[in-house]
């Protein structure tokens, strides 16, 4: 039997190296990212393009997502934040679709990979820094020194604030990857338990009912986690953007 981590292995489907060094191979991770985007495009063609005044189910779902993200951006950043709305909506749909796709057996979840989530969070963090710097120039770094704090502890505060600020980039990506990985590992462990009970035969096979029913419950939980984690990722991105627009 293979390892529980086999499901996370990257397989190069179309190997490609640029300048001999840069590995830009098309992998199973890239394929499932394309699947996620393709699935949404399919939804658009079949449900949204017709623009029904009385929406069908899928159009309703997309419109609820649209309105929720729009109000979250507006509440946290204000009207200045609406220019980032398209990006946040893209981010939510992209992450949520990839997370949900990963729940289908024998598929692959790109968001379980730290390279994807950290790459995303690092890019967002650099973007936020650039926006903050463009808005406030050197004053932007005043956030490392909270207003009203005693001067005596200023050096320590600056160090702590500096570390906590840069830890955001790490935690944003780590949170998503860790949650998705944990869910997938739980699925594997419960499936292996169920299979072992079933293959034991006789009365012991009835014991498979317990891990199987827990697995069913975990499936419902993981569907919720897939959407919640996508929302948390977007919400934190919005908050970081808000901080770079409205410096405290």
């Amino acid at each position: 039997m293979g390892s529980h981590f086999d499901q996370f292995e990257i397989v190069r489907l179309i190997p490609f190296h640029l300048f001999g060094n840069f590995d830009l191979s098309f992998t199973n991770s890239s394929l499932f990212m394309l699947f996620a985007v393709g699935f949404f495009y399919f939804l658009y063609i079949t449900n949204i393009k017709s623009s029904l005044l009385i929406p069908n189910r899928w159009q309703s779902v997309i419109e609820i997502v649209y309105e929720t993200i729009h109000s979250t951006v507006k509440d946290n950043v204000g009207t200045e934040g609406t220019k980032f709305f398209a990006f946040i909506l893209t981010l939510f749909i992209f992450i949520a679709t990839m997370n949900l796709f990963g729940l289908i057996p024998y598929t692959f979840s790109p968001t379980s990979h730290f390279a994807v989530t950290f790459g995303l969070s690092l890019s967002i963090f650099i973007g936020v820094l650039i926006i903050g710097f463009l808005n406030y120039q050197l004053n932007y770094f005043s956030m490392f020194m909270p207003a009203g704090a005693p001067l005596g502890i200023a050096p320590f505060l600056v160090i702590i604030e500096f570390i906590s600020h840069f830890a955001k980039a790490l935690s944003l990506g780590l949170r998503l990857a860790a949650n998705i990985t944990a869910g997938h590992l739980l699925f594997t462990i419960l499936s292996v338990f169920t299979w072992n009970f079933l293959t034991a035969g006789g009365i012991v096979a009835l014991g498979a009912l317990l891990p199987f029913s827990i697995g069913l419950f975990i499936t419902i939980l993981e569907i919720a986690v897939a959407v919640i984690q996508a929302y948390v990722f977007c919400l934190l991105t919005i908050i970081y953007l808000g901080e770079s627009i409205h410096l405290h």
Partner: protein
Amino acid sequence: MPQLWTETFVTQYFWLLAILFTFYAFIATTVIPKLANNIKARNISEESKEEVAQEVNTQSTTELYTQLKQNISIKEEANTWAIVQSEWLDTNPEEKEEFWASAKITEETEDYLAVSEEQEQSLEDFIKE
């Protein structure tokens, strides 16, 4: 843990950016304008519903009765028209199909336009006269 492999970082990051930016362009230029128009149109119709509700609240009972009477007569006229129309269409099924296709409404609408037996009888009497 394959999730922490550093040798696949470049390829995963490259494809992530390529796919995400393409998706962003699609969402920003095509999906958002479409959804925004839909939601705006629906909000306008919700607002007009509220306006009607407000009007009803401010009207007196006599005014409401008059309005209701008017609405009933409009509906009766519509039903009369529907019966005449459907009788005419029944004579030629091809024309009937063409009518429903050109009207861009489903045949379910027929149920909505249906009238009671009494109304149908009164209309027949009217035609005979």
